[in-house]
């Protein structure tokens, strides 16, 4: 491969857009060409700098509320209420969540917890936290600050792994009550997406990770070591699965 051929593909390599064979051939070229390697390193640094600068522009809270009100307002009529994607917006209100919980839980109610209802409650909680000015009670990217914070506040110790190497940045933690039970919410960030991980004690056998979608958000639930785990976010579902796998194995 010549530099001329490699040039445009350096970007595709950096952006994980090449298949394994393509990536390997670029890597071979990079190992033999100082100029392309320097160019690649510079691009990598640029990417890291942009990521570190955290340049996503967030809308003002007043505007977000206004928009929310405006588009929720149009969803009051029952026929429109259930139309596909507008359910996304509808779940922003506690009232809508109430309806969802009711509809989902009635036929599936069972002793020991109803995961559908809990899922809706988790999503409701996640959305409220996103709207709030502070999303965490203890803001810290240091796992050794967040984990001890929960001691004394909960009678269990949630896992707070450092996943920054995998591009899941720890934001902090907060205490929540889910289904009348205290739960630790550990907040991570992947690019501009917030991931809330809810952990609370719950007796039961270990289970596989279950993915469900609700109002455009994805929720992952699993049981492990008598703890119930819920991860919720609007991040790509594959990223959320990766996140869950990391939590499960660490």
């Amino acid at each position, binding site marked *: 491969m010549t*530099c001329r051929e490699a040039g445009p593909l350096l970007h595709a390599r950096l952006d994980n*857009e090449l298949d394994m064979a393509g990536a390997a051939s670029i890597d071979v070229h990079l190992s033999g060409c100082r100029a392309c390697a320097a160019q690649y390193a510079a*691009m990598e640094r640029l990417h890291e700098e942009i990521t570190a600068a955290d340049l996503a522009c*967030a*809308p003002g809270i007043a505007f*977000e509320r206004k928009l929310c009100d405006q588009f929720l307002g149009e969803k009051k009529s029952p026929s429109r209420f259930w139309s596909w994607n*507008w359910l996304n*917006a509808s779940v922003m209100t506690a009232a809508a969540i109430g309806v969802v919980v009711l509809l989902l839980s009635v036929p599936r109610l069972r002793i020991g917890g109803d995961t559908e209802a809990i899922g809706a409650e988790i999503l409701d909680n996640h959305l409220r936290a996103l709207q709030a000015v502070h999303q965490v009670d203890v803001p810290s990217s240091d796992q050794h600050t967040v984990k001890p914070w929960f001691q004394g506040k909960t009678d269990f110790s949630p896992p707070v792994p450092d996943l920054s190497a995998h591009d899941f940045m720890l934001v902090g933690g907060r205490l929540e009550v889910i289904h009348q039970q205290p739960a630790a919410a550990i907040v991570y960030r992947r690019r501009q997406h917030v991931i809330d991980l809810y952990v609370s004690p719950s007796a039961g056998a270990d289970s596989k990770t279950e993915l469900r979608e609700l109002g*455009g958000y994805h929720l992952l639930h699993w049981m492990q070591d008598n703890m119930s785990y819920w991860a919720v976010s609007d991040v790509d579902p594959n990223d959320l699965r990766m996140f869950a796998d990391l939590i499960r194995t660490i």
Partner: protein
Amino acid sequence: MWPHMRAAYNLARWLVRNDQDAEDIVQESFLKAFKAQASFRGTEAKTWMLSIVRNTAMDFRRRDKSGIAVPLGEEGREPKDDSPDPERVLLDQSRREQVRHAISHLEPEFREVIVLREIEGLPYKEIASVLGIPMGTVMSRLSRARNLLLVELGGTKLEGEVQHDLP
């Protein structure tokens, strides 16, 4: 649509570079999306929403250029002058500001690929879908945009000027 509101705002804000227009664009885009939802057949709600935002922002820019809308100080907080005052650069703001400034001063066609790729983290296929251009064009614009940023931020020389070891 709601999960993509922040991405929509981010793209709009980077394209028009001021808060008020970005808010108007997002609001208008939501209205358009709401009206058009019956005709939406795709599976990628996010790219669909972002393409509406992007087209709406382009309309804003065109209106602005023709002088119909927003007559004064449209570029918001960004200085219009493209040549940076050396003293100001020296005193400079943090590196974050430099990076933000460099992206903000790219031409729109380069700025939008950088925002979609580096800030929103979209794969090429989705960027192509948002911008309505072929993947090859996404790659060449991204390549050009990154090189411009590297030059601006003092990272390296342009590709063509680099001395390569291999033919």
